[in-house]
């Protein structure tokens, strides 16, 4: 992330988005088998390129390795395994190895600190030296306040996570990520644990946040509707070992209505995705019986 100059920073983060690019080349991931005999291939050669701030949905069946790919982008590595096994990830043309501060991740498990208030949870990242030396305390205060307003928690700044609903907690986690103004935001099924209505609210919230503070989002989901509602681009991964089986863009403006979801365009896209998911599942079954 580029360091911000305190005084030059606009109050609202609606400035033109910083350009960003991320490229994955020939990504293969293998994990050693539990019994030590050989390796299991989870990801089987993925090439992807993201060139501008946009919302990109990484869609695939459960356990297909989409989270593995996302974690690679974030530099989160499982202990003792080389990640990726082969292939390269570049951000702005620079190879990305290990943890780096170009990205922030949001998980289904929001991991808000139960002992801190909503305000202090959103300000939490600024306890780390990386940010502390870049951003002054008064600037932090301003950003946190702004962020809380943006996610609609301005009035709940002094409550603790236990006093909030699941959706509100996920909002805190989202605010805690966006307050860093990341150029790349990686989301791993962030709304997966929420009930249908809250999930819908959060999707709308994400869209409006993104309009105000554009960045490159890679969003992992196994929910086709979510992918169609949110994505500028939908990337479909197959059953493991994961490959990209489809990759298309959606030009419809956000927020997309339930009406649009019933339109011919959306229906066709949904059928296209379903067909490929089912085809993949059948291949999987054949492989099992053989």
């Amino acid at each position, binding site marked *: 992330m580029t360091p911000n100059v305190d005084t030059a920073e606009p109050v609202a983060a609606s400035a033109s988005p910083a350009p960003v690019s991320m490229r994955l080349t020939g990504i293969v991931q293998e994990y050693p088998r539990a019994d030590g005999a050989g390796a299991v291939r989870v990801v089987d050669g993925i090439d992807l390129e993201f060139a501008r701030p946009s919302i990109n949905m990484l869609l695939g069946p459960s356990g297909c390795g989409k989270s593995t790919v996302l974690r690679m982008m*974030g530099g*989160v590595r499982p202990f003792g395994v080389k990640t990726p096994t082969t292939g390269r990830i570049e951000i702005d043309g620079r190879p990305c190895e290990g*943890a780096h*501060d170009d*990205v*922030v*991740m949001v*998980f289904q*498990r*929001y*991991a808000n*600190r*139960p*002992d801190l208030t909503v305000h202090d949870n959103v300000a*939490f*990242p600024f*306890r*780390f*030296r*990386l*940010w502390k030396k870049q951003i002054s305390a008064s600037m932090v205060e301003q950003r946190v306040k702004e962020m809380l307003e943006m996610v609609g928690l301005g009035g709940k700044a002094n409550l*603790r*996570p*236990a006093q909030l609903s699941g959706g509100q907690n996920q909002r805190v986690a989202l605010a*805690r*990520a966006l307050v*860093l103004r990341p150029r790349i935001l990686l989301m791993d099924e962030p709304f997966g644990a929420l009930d249908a209505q809250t999930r819908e609210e959060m999707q709308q919230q994400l869209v409006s946040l993104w309009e105000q503070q554009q960045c490159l989002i890679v969003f992992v989901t196994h929910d086709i509707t979510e992918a169609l509602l949110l994505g500028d681009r939908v990337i479909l991964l197959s059953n493991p070992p994961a490959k990209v089986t489809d990759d298309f863009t959606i030009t419809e403006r956000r927020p997309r209505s339930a009406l649009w979801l019933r339109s011919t365009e959306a229906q066709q896209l949904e059928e296209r995705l379903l067909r490929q998911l089912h085809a993949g599942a059948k291949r999987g079954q054949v492989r099992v019986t053989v």
Partner: protein
Amino acid sequence: MWNPYSEVAPATARRLGLGSVLTVLGLWALVCGVGLVGPAKLPSPWAVVHAFIQLSWNAQLGSSPLMEATLWSVSRVLIAGVLVVVIGVPIGLLMGASPRINATLSPLVDPFRSAPVVALLPILVMWLGIGEAMKIAFLFLGAVVYLVPMVRDAVRAVPQAYWISARDLGATPWEAVWHGVFPLARPRIADAITVAVSVMWTYITVAEYVNAQKGLGQLIQNARRFSAMDQVFAGIVVIVGLALVTYSGMVALKRQLYPWEVE
């Protein structure tokens, strides 16, 4: 009745608890009253109360032997307790924070959890003599071998998600431990300290048996020597009472300090 998840109203719970205590006291009084057991083996409740009053104020000396003994014991537990926390908690934190440190230190700590620390007393006497240092060291050792593994486990019980989340937000591994994991281990560490203090109360009499000059252990030891069973009982009641007071005080303090729970 047979529903482990049902709740008992606080008033009912208090009544039931008081009832069982009174029942035991009643049986005790009955056994002594009808002379089933002689006073040399089991002093009657009123004899214990009498001994308690006697020990509370010695008119000849113009002082309270019981109060004096209590202060000695309390200050020993306090000093040893501070040492246990100041030394034990950081070691436990480091062991919990790093499996490498844990692998290095656990062979030195874990065996003593199940080993009789009392057996170390003669060694401590040989090394440190029979004075205060030995008594404090004994209390310290007895409690710290419980505390360290419990603090370590408290750290390890914090879900990994907090560490990963802090790392993702830009923390170094140590910062992720310091800001993301340790703070959430505090309630369990408070529990560990409570247990450690309880352990010290059980060891205090042993610590004060050797070269008994001051303290509740000495008081009990002396009374036993003169076959004053009523005084022995009075001393035990005081120790149990003190342990109970510290325990409930610490539990209340913990609830006050950490009213939240880790999901």
